[in-house]
């Protein structure tokens, strides 16, 4: 399946775009997505943390992704 990942803050800067298409095998989980994108952008490993939001909610690594999911990378937040 093809997923469009939304990017914010420093992850947008690292990846160089506010959206990115990712090809993943059907049944891929959040941790598979993270692994694949970290391989492509090694400097993501320098972040204090990197979470994934699925449909506007923080998602654990085991959550299975579908092509209809709204997916975003969440680098360390710093609002307030």
């Amino acid at each position, binding site marked *: 399946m093809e997923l469009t990942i939304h990017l914010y803050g420093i992850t947008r800067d690292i990846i160089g775009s506010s959206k990115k298409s990712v090809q993943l095998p059907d049944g891929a989980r959040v941790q598979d997505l993270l692994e694949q994108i970290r391989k492509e952008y090694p400097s993501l490993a320098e972040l204090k943390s990197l979470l994934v939001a699925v449909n506007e909610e923080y998602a654990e690594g085991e959550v299975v992704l579908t092509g209809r999911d709204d997916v975003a990378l969440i680098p360390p937040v*710093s609002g307030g």
Partner: protein
Amino acid sequence: MIEITDQPIQVQSCIDAVQSERAGAVDVFIGTVRNHNKNREVVRLEFEAFDGMAVRKMRELGEEASRRWPVEKIAIVHRKGTLEIGDIAVVIAVATPHRKDAFEACRWVIDTLKEVVPIWKKEIYENGEEWLEAHP
């Protein structure tokens, strides 16, 4: 009143939004842009938000605060975009019958907002810029 806005935040509107005849106390937290951070002089800030999720999380904070304390009304408003020194980044207003709860709930909301709400702050210096909290 739970909002992300790219316009200047009006504190009075937040206070008006939590007005209640049953409340004897309102605690209002105002986060503003300081001219320095960690000994570096700050020129301006840029806030970026994952709007939908941020508002959703802010609404959850309001609901959770109302479960933990006897909150009459609560307002949480966060600014995004470019902010100059002195500009208001966030306002939290909490109305409760008694003051202890207003202080505690307000402080819990700003502390937790900074941990979970997907908003990112970039500081701009004379020569350089940095996304805060990004690196260990």
